[in-house]
């Protein structure tokens, strides 16, 4: 698998993710230590959780105790359910060990690349996603290590790290907008995202807004 065309394409396509997620990992490492995590625990959290959204939320809510953190993690995690179903469809029957591994790094960024690869007709989706996972995981953990152990002098906001990941998602979404239904879903998603900031708790905004916009898309598919 490591020398397959799809794997190499996955490596090439995910360079941008390596850079963006690496920078975000540095930001997480800095903020996690600021929030009271020792550097080793900040590192362990990135190794085990591999979710920027869950981890930033965790350190943001740390002072409030375990319950809000766990509720928020559940709310954020719900968006993985349709992602998981969608990926299962894309990869078809696979050995259990492979499915367990692919689920480990089922994150928004590599899922986005994988969806794009499926649409583009990439032959071996498992190899492609494995490469993207490897790049993301390396960047995320290495960034966290750097930020947690050496990041005291870094101000992630000064370089605009917080803007690059949302821009990345805009870039991933752009080629997916092809027909009228897609435009409707995209417009609904913008409206739902803005509405969600006003009516939903932060941890539920992404999941709730994406689900609402997708429901609009169902209506358009009839």
């Amino acid at each position: 698998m490591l020398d397959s065309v799809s794997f190499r394409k996955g490596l090439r396509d995910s360079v941008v993710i390596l850079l963006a997620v690496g920078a975000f990992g540095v930001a997480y490492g800095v903020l996690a230590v600021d929030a009271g995590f020792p550097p080793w625990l900040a590192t362990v959290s990135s190794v085990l959780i591999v979710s920027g959204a869950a981890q930033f939320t965790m350190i943001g809510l740390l002072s409030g105790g375990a319950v809000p953190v766990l509720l928020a993690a559940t709310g954020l995690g719900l968006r993985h359910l349709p992602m998981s179903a969608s990926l299962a469809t894309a990869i078809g029957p696979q050995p259990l060990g492979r499915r367990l591994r692919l689920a480990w790094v089922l994150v928004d960024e590599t899922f986005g690349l994988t969806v794009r690869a499926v649409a583009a007709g990439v032959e071996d989706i498992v190899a492609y996603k494995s490469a993207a996972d490897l790049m993301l995981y390396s960047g995320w953990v290495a960034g966290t290590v750097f930020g947690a152990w050496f990041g005291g002098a870094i101000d992630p906001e000064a370089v605009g790290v917080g803007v690059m990941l949302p821009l990345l998602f805009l870039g991933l979404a752009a080629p997916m907008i092809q027909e009228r239904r897609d435009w409707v879903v995209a417009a609904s998603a913008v409206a739902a995202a803005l509405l969600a900031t006003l009516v939903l708790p932060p941890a539920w905004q992404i999941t709730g807004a994406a689900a609402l916009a997708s429901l609009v898309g169902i209506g358009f598919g009839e």
Partner: protein
Amino acid sequence: MSDLGLVLAVAVITYATRLAFLVRPRQVPEGPLGRFLEVFPLALFIVIATSGLAAPAGEPAFTPALAAAVGGVAGGIVFRRNLWGVLGVGAIFFYLTRAVVQ
């Protein structure tokens, strides 16, 4: 709960949600669920982009991040939805706007 225990609990919750539909092989769903899964990725990406660029502090606001969104859309149009075009033009709009505003 200790901080380590909390990290482990969040890891378990996150992995469980990721694994939910991957633990057993599935057929392509049909009907409303199939259509939901078809459009969910697009909806998710647009929601994440909108939240991060139009409401970076948790509520809608005019910030340099919004200029990045405008630049990203412009880059997408000019460079025919190319990822690097969206990122590049969006970043340029962001840095220019931030330099002007600050």
